[in-house]
């Protein structure tokens, strides 16, 4: 479904991603783990066309290089950015409506809204509230719900556990699991390697802008290097 070949990203001459290649198949959840500054977020941003990148990105057989960022959601790719990025001065309902901005199929949008409310009942309770007044966990839920309103086939999640209380992290990952179960393909970037590998089926480990390990999630969880570097053992 998604394929990156020799992806390179640099900020003002400093290379953050140094030529990585990876693939995500339809229906799987893939985790991209690594330490802070390993280039994970840069990778996601490059995929979402928010950062200029060299190399090839192919999504559903289409080359993404020439596409602007706002053309992605219509093709089925959504990003839940690091730090959530909800529109603080828009209400919860308006944030969700923004998620469906690219769509015109009103009946299906209402159906999806109901689905999102079922999945994330908190959002229904808070629908008239400004998103900026939500707690961090609720904002993460909103960001997720908003992305789902675009009916993505591929969901890019950037650090969904960041800054959340353990209980909330658990809830967020439960929801991510439920989304994956509906057939949405997920590429998950996480610092919390244990959580990420427990949810995903495959994983890549990034270090210093390169992919150093690629394996099934189970094998990575059992890998000595991963356990020492990322699981604190």
């Amino acid at each position, binding site marked *: 479904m998604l394929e990156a070949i020799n992806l390179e990203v640099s900020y003002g001459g400093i290379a953050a991603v140094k030529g990585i290649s990876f693939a995500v198949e339809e229906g799987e959840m893939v985790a991209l783990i690594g330490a802070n500054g390993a280039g994970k977020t840069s990778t996601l941003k490059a995929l979402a066309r928010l950062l200029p990148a060299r190399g090839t990105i192919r999504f559903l057989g289409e080359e993404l290089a020439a596409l*602007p960022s706002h053309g992605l959601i219509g093709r089925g790719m959504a990003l839940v950015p690091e730090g959530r990025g909800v529109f603080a001065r*828009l209400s919860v309902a308006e944030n969700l409506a923004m998620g469906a901005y*690219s769509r015109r199929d009103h009946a299906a949008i209402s159906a999806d809204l109901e689905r999102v409310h079922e999945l994330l009942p908190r959002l229904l309770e808070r629908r008239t509230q400004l998103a900026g007044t939500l707690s961090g966990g609720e904002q993460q839920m909103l960001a997720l719900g908003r992305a789902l309103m*675009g009916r993505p086939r591929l969901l890019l999640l950037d650090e969904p556990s960041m800054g959340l209380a353990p209980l909330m992290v658990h809830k967020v990952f439960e929801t991510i699991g439920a989304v994956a179960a509906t057939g949405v393909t997920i590429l998950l970037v996480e610092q919390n390697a244990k959580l990420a590998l427990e949810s995903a089926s495959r994983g890549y480990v990034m270090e210093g802008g390169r992919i150093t390990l690629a394996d099934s999630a189970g094998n990575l969880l059992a890998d000595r290097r991963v356990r020492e570097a990322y699981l604190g053992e």
Partner: protein
Amino acid sequence: MDTFVQQIINGLTLGSIYALVALGYTMVYGILGLINFAHGEVVMIGALTALAVIKPLAGAGLPWPLAVLAGVAAAIAACMALGFVIERVAYRPLRNAPRLAPLITAIGVSMVLQQLAMIIWGRNYHSFPQLLPATPRAIGGAQITDLQIMIVAVAILMMAGLALLVNRTRLGRAMRATAENPQIAGLMGVDANHIVSLTFVIGSALAAVAGVMVSANYGIAHYNMGFILGLKAFTAAVLGGIGNLTGAMLGGILLGLIEALGAGYIGDLTGGFLGSDYQDVFAFFVLIVVLIFRPSGLMGEKVSERA
């Protein structure tokens, strides 16, 4: 007391005009963080375009209301096109440049438009025809003309329309989302360039109407009329809290009232030393006071909220 009521009426008229122009400043600032100092010139182009259409049409025997409507429509169309072109040519290439660059460009655009208007319409003051019969109506010891009623009513209608567009439509939602975070809005499928163009076009349409109003109110139009008016409307936008639509409306009305009341009483207050020709001083006094004591304006939000 008569002076008071009269100056309130004058202030509301003037304030309605300021509010319409201030909205243009504040909308662009809200989305781009840019002060479009050429906006005052758009007002001027609106007034002169309306004049250039109304006079010959009326001269050719078209009924007066139709000629006026055609003039206003032409002004709106011309200004919308102008706003679109200004953004495309002057600001878009500098979208990622340091903030000072588009500011200087804005002043440059302002000068170019003034010179252009001078070439087309000359340096003279043009008398602007009376759009409505000037018979005053008496209210509470003061007088109000049909034109003043019309100015306030049209301004209210336009502001209500804008508020509806921004707060109740899909497009308005996209505008607010883009103002808050263009990158994230882009991920939702919003083409930020599209929204920016739209913002300039809408602001310019309001400016065109304001231009016709201000010229009708004072009975004159000339190539240099946009400068001071633009500065005052900018002041109104800052007073209300730049970037905030309600603030711009409120700031415009308030500034109009402050100016009118100030001009009405400055003679009494200074024992005749200063006259109402010092009217302009009030706007800039307000600007200075606001910048010193409440730089975020009456309804402004903290700048740090922009992520």
